[in-house]
């Protein structure tokens, strides 16, 4: 067991920086997930920890031992780091049987063959593949291969386990069971584990702590609940499913809450500030579409967190009804439980036309707008030919967010 500490880790490929002065601590016995969009440097970070890449700067230490410190030209080769890794392709050796694959790390550690056989047997038992021991490793199905890879990574009782997108090659159903199995194995062995994924559900269900990465840096770290419930940046919010946004301006700050007037209206929304906000700051109000509800317009009395809107489109989706709304020229999505699930009766009634949109208080966050100048020129999001809004491109696409703070 060991703590993994990464300090100011930097890795460049040519002129591109894949990992940029990244700091990260994984506590002893913790299951930590690196989450982030494609290309944000998750794999690179993992490979630097494994010793498969040599960092350009920074230090990596495992269990208090420095593994690489570029400034001191110090580098421990991967085979000396005492780690286990499950590769995305599983990387089972095709010229070996299942049990030979699992036995290999022990063989390299010169474990006597009787002991070796016993531990391989135990491991295969653990992953439920005992009867496949003599089969050729690559003749197994994807899920089975993955379990062999897990067994191979675990067999030498390494101090740290690394996973690179362990579930991405599996189908949805297998993904859920394997995820649960990984969790169970971790609970049993208690090995410090780092897992890379770009799937938020996977990250939330697997891990003790999630680190959201962006452009080679840590954007936010916290428990799955913290990340999911209280994102601290707009990027994280978007990444964990805050899929609706409205532009506004801070009109009052009081008791830890912010009051934001939605642009183009005189309505004020009481919400939580995503970070420190100055008065009169231009902000984006971020919400989950499932937290937005819709009422018939007659209730409208100008109260807090209620804004008038117009239904542009209504799509029945089984358990929910998705409304595409126009709020003062801004597109907003609302997922309302349908009458099928005993949800709001209104969802069955409301059709086209003016409505009152109810915005949540706890589930709405105001983040400093990064594209205000841009957004001001273009009050409404473009609407596609079917009347559905095109994806709002000032929302979370990381490339457009690197933003100059004009």
């Amino acid at each position, binding site marked *: 067991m060991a703590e993994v500490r990464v300090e100011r880790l930097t890795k460049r490929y040519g002129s591109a920086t894949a990992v940029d002065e990244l700091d990260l601590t994984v506590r002893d016995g913790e299951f930590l997930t690196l989450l982030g969009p494609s290309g944000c440097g998750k794999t690179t970070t993992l490979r630097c920890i494994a010793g498969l890449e040599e960092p350009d700067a920074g230090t990596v230490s495992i269990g208090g031992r420095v593994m690489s410190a570029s400034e001191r*030209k110090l580098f421990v080769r991967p085979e000396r780091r005492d780690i286990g890794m499950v590769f995305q392709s599983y990387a089972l050796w095709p010229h070996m049987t299942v049990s030979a694959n699992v036995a290999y790390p022990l063989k390299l550690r010169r474990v006597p063959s009787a002991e070796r056989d016993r531990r391989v047997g135990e491991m295969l038992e653990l992953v439920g593949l005992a009867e496949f021991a003599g089969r050729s490793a690559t003749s197994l199905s994807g899920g089975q291969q993955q379990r062999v890879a897990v067994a191979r990574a675990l067999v*030498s009782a390494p101090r740290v386990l690394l996973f690179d997108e362990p579930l991405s090659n599996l189908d949805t159903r297998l993904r859920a069971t394997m995820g649960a199995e990984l969790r169970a194995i971790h609970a049993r062995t208690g090995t410090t584990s780092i897992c890379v994924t770009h799937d938020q559900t996977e990250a939330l269900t697997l891990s003790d702590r999630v680190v959201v990465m962006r452009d080679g840096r840590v954007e936010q770290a916290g428990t799955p609940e913290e990340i999911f419930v209280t994102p601290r940046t707009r990027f994280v919010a978007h990444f964990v499913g805050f899929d609706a946004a409205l532009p506004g301006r801070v009109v009052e700050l009081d008791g830890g809450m912010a009051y934001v007037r939605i642009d183009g209206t005189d309505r004020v929304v009481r919400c939580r500030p995503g970070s420190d906000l100055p008065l009169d700051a231009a902000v984006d109000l971020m919400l989950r579409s499932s937290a937005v509800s819709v009422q018939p317009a007659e209730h409208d009395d100008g109260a807090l967190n209620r804004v008038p809107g117009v239904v542009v489109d209504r799509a029945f989706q089984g358990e929910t009804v998705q409304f595409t709304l126009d709020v003062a020229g801004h597109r907003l999505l609302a997922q309302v439980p349908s009458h099928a699930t005993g949800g709001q009766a209104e969802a069955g009634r409301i059709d086209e036309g003016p409505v009152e949109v109810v915005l949540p208080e706890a589930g709405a966050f105001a983040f400093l707008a990064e594209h205000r100048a841009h957004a001001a020129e273009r009050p409404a999001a473009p609407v596609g030919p079917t009347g559905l809004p095109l994806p709002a491109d000032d929302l979370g696409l990381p490339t457009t967010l690197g933003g100059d703070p004009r």
Partner: protein
Amino acid sequence: MNAAASEARLPSLRRLPPPALVALTVVVLVLFGLPIVMLLAGAFRSAPPGSAGQWTFSAVAAVYSDADTYRTLGNSVVLSASQHLVGIALGVFFAWIVARTNTPLRRLITPMMVVVFAIPNLFVAISYGLLAGSPNGLVNDLAVDLLGGRPRVVVDVYSWWGLIFVSSLKVVPVMYLLLLGPVLALNRSLEEAAVMAGSGRARTFLRIQLPLLAPVLSGLAVLGFVVGLGLLDTPLILGVPADIYVFPSRIYSYLAGGTSPRYAEASALSLLLVALILLLVLARARFLGGRDFTTLTGKSYSSERWDIGAWKWACSAAIVVFAFFALVLPAGQLLVGSLQPIFGVSDKYNLDNYRTLLEDSTAVGAIGNTLLIGVVGGFVATTLALFVAYAARRSRSRLRRLPELSVWLVVAFPGIVLGLGTVWAYLSIPVLRQLYGSLWIVLIALVVFISPTAGRAIDGAVVQIDRELEEAARISGASATRTLIGVVARLIAPAFLATWFVTGVAVAGNLDVSILLSGPGNQTVPVLTYNYYSQNGQTEQAAALLCILMAIVAALFVVGRGLYALVGAVLAHRRRRKDRPQWPADVGTGRGRRAEVIAGG
């Protein structure tokens, strides 16, 4: 910190390439770069290699202003172009038979082509020289029997037609093996759509399939043409007696023709040839976008074959005819010739020629040398190719592509030119001069010559090894070396063995490179055979020697296959007992691999 002991200090790893890579680069540069550079310099020297001389333009001026040079150029172009036209046409034809028709004998084509491919040019050329070059050969015997009259040369293979015919026989299998993949991979639905639209089958082939193959065909044509420009053996044996000179035989005649060898002139002519080849290779890369047409998938389609009706008998006949001319006739003539104490006298057959050879220390020595060269040379070339390919694929140093590039440059240097460059390099440099006249220099030159071929085959295999397989071994606790041996070597073994065999055979049968390097002390079978055939008029012994060479190759193949199967069986047995690793699948029987091996040559 107590862990400091096991922390490796890195000598500024980012700037300095790893020592193994530096060593590899130096070895490759010396092996491959030196002959090229020395050849270049040699064209401007007034004296032969190893003697004092001045820098001069006289040789270059003389050669480049000689009308003969341009006649030679014309001959080279005509010969190479014509043999490849025939080769490609027949190659497509046979590939189409295999891929699409219900011709009864189609399954024989691939094994036949592989055998024809494996037989050295020298074998076929000498055999045809015997068959149809003298009044005593089988062909003229038969012709005289039919026509009557006294023994004479009715069909003369020492002519343009003979030269083109015999050269083409050896080009067909190369083209066939390279084209089989693309023809198999042709999109069948396009063809079916055409047939549905009412197009006839023959028409579909000409209108739909040939155009689809056009890029592949044009790429192969250029490549084959370039290779054809550099071949010495057949033009030397069949062309020179008819006074038909192409580049390689002209280079050879500068060195062996007159009273004293004219090295500078030979080098100047070589440079012209190399320049021409480089130009064509670059033009091909430019116009065809450097596409590699030989990376074939071994995918086979098991859909319906065309029933070509009575034509299938015509196609079968074509297969038989080709086998007869490319295989049966030359092999038969050599066998018959080797058993005749006096060539062409057909009333007495015995083993006298073999007895004489085996009592002659020169011949026995040559056989030993050739075996050594084949086995060791093939192994060294394959190993070198593996390191070069591995470095190019896995290293992150800036140096990593240099060895690969040097190896590729050799492609532009035909055998005789490389032999000449080797002479320059190893005679001019004092330390290396000691190697001259020894078997080692022949070995080195042949390794250099065959390396691009080996490289092509091995690179394909290295590419297929997923990098994560190696990384998984590192993480499991294996050092880099251990990973190379325990994982990479095991995965590459089948390709390695196949490449070793193919390059070994190619090296053992090579005349082009060794003809300038091998003398009385370090003779190889091809060179000795050529000497017997051309100079001493000991045709019978030339035939016997070739038969021995082929017998040895066949024996090695059988023994090698057997050993491989045995090792596989033993390992499989151990695995059954102990759950041990299994032996990788069969030695490269995939068409793709074989084709790639060939494409380098």
